[in-house]
């Protein structure tokens, strides 16, 4: 009796999996692959008969696997090996497949440890893949219970695998560098907080489309946030310019604000740089002749950061009011052109549709109702933008 009891108690946990036996994936990238790779592929998730070969284009998936014991846990360990290159802390392997799961399984066949996504922080998808559609990628990660919603997903200009292989100087682990790039962009006000979970939620909404950061690997292995990749359903349509992110954040009233803008004053050479410190915005919607009219009121607080020449001085409040006026106009034009651009593409990344659904449910139920209907109606909606801004401080110089 006692021994019968001991057997289950001593054998321990079914799901025990030692750290060394896991392949902890920190980052993953998805690229398109040549048709020719399909011929090289071994039959791992499909066979010639029975389980068919999926009829989709090939993708190449690259994972960044943490090497146990090599990742420095704190600043104390950094002295030992000198400058640790990324190739010493992670192992980058790639494989092709027809679908996400197919590619991952092809990889698993080559890697001894069980691929584990519990620490996945960054998912990089190449522009080419995003333009053909993200359904398969979203489905795979949403279904997997290990993936966290707080990971960053980003779209890379050009090849995504290069970002996995990049070895930035600042951080020992490349995937963590990518992550901190985005986290700091959020803190500096360069990009809205937009984890993969938020992207999924936004894409699912009837009156909104998702967007993701659009990044590019630069020469020094650094990563530039190049703007927002905007989507329609699951397909990427294009990317904005970096400054348009500021316009987006102004329209949404997102803080912290971080972009600098050049404001041109009277006389063709008088220019100053200002930066916004905080923003507020509110939407209003009304129905006019059966059309939706949105009023966006934006309020920004700005500081003067730089004056481009010495010909004029900023030493009285009248001068600041002038800057205010011009900043208002400039911001309004930028916001209007961003909305217009999105309207042409039919991608409502702002969530105006959601706002209409929430505030004018009667109109929404009668005239819109579905996501595709809103995508076409968004193009015809009218927008009024009101901008107010106040300049508060000018730094440490008196004029």
């Amino acid at each position, binding site marked *: 009796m006692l021994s019968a009891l001991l057997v289950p108690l001593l054998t321990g*946990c*079914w*799901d025990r999996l030692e750290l060394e036996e896991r392949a902890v994936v920190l980052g993953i990238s998805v690229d398109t692959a040549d048709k020719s790779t399909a011929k090289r592929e071994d039959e791992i998730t499909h066979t010639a008969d029975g389980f068919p070969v999926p009829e989709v284009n090939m993708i190449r998936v690259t994972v960044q696997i943490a090497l146990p014991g090599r990742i420095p846990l704190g600043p104390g360990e950094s002295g030992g090996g000198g400058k640790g290159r990324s190739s010493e802390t992670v192992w980058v392997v790639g494989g092709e497949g027809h679908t996400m799961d197919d590619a991952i399984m092809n990889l698993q066949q080559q890697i001894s440890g069980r691929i584990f996504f519990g620490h996945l922080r960054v998912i990089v998808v190449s522009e080419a893949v995003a333009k053909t559609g993200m359904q398969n990628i979203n489905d795979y990660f*949403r279904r997997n*219970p290990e993936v*966290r*919603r*707080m990971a960053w997903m980003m779209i890379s200009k050009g090849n995504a695998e290069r970002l996995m292989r990049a070895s930035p100087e600042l951080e020992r682990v490349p995937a963590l560098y990518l992550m901190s790039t985005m986290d700091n962009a959020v803190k500096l006000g360069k990009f809205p907080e937009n*984890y993969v*979970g*938020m992207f*999924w*939620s*936004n894409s*699912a*909404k*009837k009156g909104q489309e998702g967007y993701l950061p659009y990044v590019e690997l630069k020469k020094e292995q650094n990563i530039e946030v190049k703007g927002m990749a905007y989507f329609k359903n699951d397909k990427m349509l294009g990317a904005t310019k970096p400054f348009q992110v500021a316009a987006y954040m102004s329209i949404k009233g997102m803080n912290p604000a971080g972009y600098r803008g050049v404001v041109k004053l009277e006389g063709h050479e008088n220019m100053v740089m200002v930066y916004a410190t905080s923003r507020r915005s509110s939407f209003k919607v009304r129905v006019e002749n059966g059309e939706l009219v949105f009023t966006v009121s934006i309020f920004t607080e700005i500081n003067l950061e730089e004056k481009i020449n010495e010909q004029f001085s900023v030493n009285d409040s009248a001068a600041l009011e002038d800057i205010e006026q011009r900043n208002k106009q400039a911001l309004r034009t930028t916001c209007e052109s961003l909305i217009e651009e999105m309207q042409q593409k039919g991608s409502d990344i702002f*969530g105006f549709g*959601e*706002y209409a*659904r*929430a*505030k004018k*449910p009667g109109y*929404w*139920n009668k005239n819109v*109702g579905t996501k595709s209907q809103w995508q076409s109606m968004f193009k015809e909606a009218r927008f009024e933008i009101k901008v107010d801004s106040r300049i508060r401080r000018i730094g440490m110089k008196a004029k």
Partner: protein
Amino acid sequence: MENQREITTIQAGAILSSTIIGVGVLPIPLFAVRGADSGAPLVTVCGVLFAFLGLFLITRLGMRFPDRSITQYGEEIIGKWLSRLGSAAVIGFFAVLTSLAAREFGEVVITSVLTKTPLEVTVIVMLTLAAISTRNNITTFAYIHQFYFPLLIGPALLIVALSLKNAEAINLQPIWGNSHEGMLASVLTIAALFQGSFIITTVIPAMRRPQTAMKASVFALLISGGLYVTIVAATVSVFGSEETKNLLWPTLELAKATSLPANILERLDAAFLAVWVTAVFTTLNSSYFLAVKEMSKLFRLKDHKLFTFFLLPAVFSMAMVPRNILNMYEIIQNVSRIGLFVTVVYPGLLLVVSVLRKKRGETSEKRSAT
């Protein structure tokens, strides 16, 4: 045994709340958004009100017969054979409910945490645990619930509060929702999640002051219903109703998307699951206790311990009936909606007949005099 009257009003309330809060916490936002997308909290409130109707009837009945539970006063109200049929239905229903809750628990565990542990093992461990703890008498039973009650409410509220950082009010508007197809079905499904409150019929005969039972019921429904509404509102406001429809267990996903400040814990799903296991345990414990206790009363036995292990194989094999996870949810929805006949219509019938025939428990007047 029968004359033990030690349960206080607060204990009764705690038993009811911790029984109600159970395995249903995880899918409830999904059930609610299916009814009326952004109107999900409203659907939940309707469900709570409907559930209160059932709880009101059974509490009222219990207060009319403060010394007896449904199997016993049923016989006096509608006669021996009819009532035995009704009691058998109650016992059978709660046995099925126990098994389905255990199965649902097993499915969540096997999908999200212990993917390699066989389903049978998690289910049987949980059921055995429930069976062992039902061998206690009703006072110990009450203390178990009283002990776990704050452990359930506290962390759940904490997760909700932390998740509100990402909430958007726009996701909850319009509050009555955009489409109402299937709203009634959702209300019934949610009301069915509260069926554990039927345990009050077993608790009343052991209460120190049965006339305060209604207070305990209202209190319990406010707490558990309030918690459910808060969870639904938080989930929908964070994810939006359309995304919630994509998630099998939105509440678990909410815990996954929530992190403690200052990066102490980056995802709370593990902590949440720990709380949830306790919640499932208290629910299983109650419904199993109800089935066992009423069964012993049906057979006029003094002690209910005989049935605790006797019922286990039956409950376990019922838990193994659903073929897959979607099949399981279909079965759960159907069974629990049918169960509303047992937990709402049957007590309602008993109450009407007892009022018409002016039947009352003898001791109630004596008790209110003292």
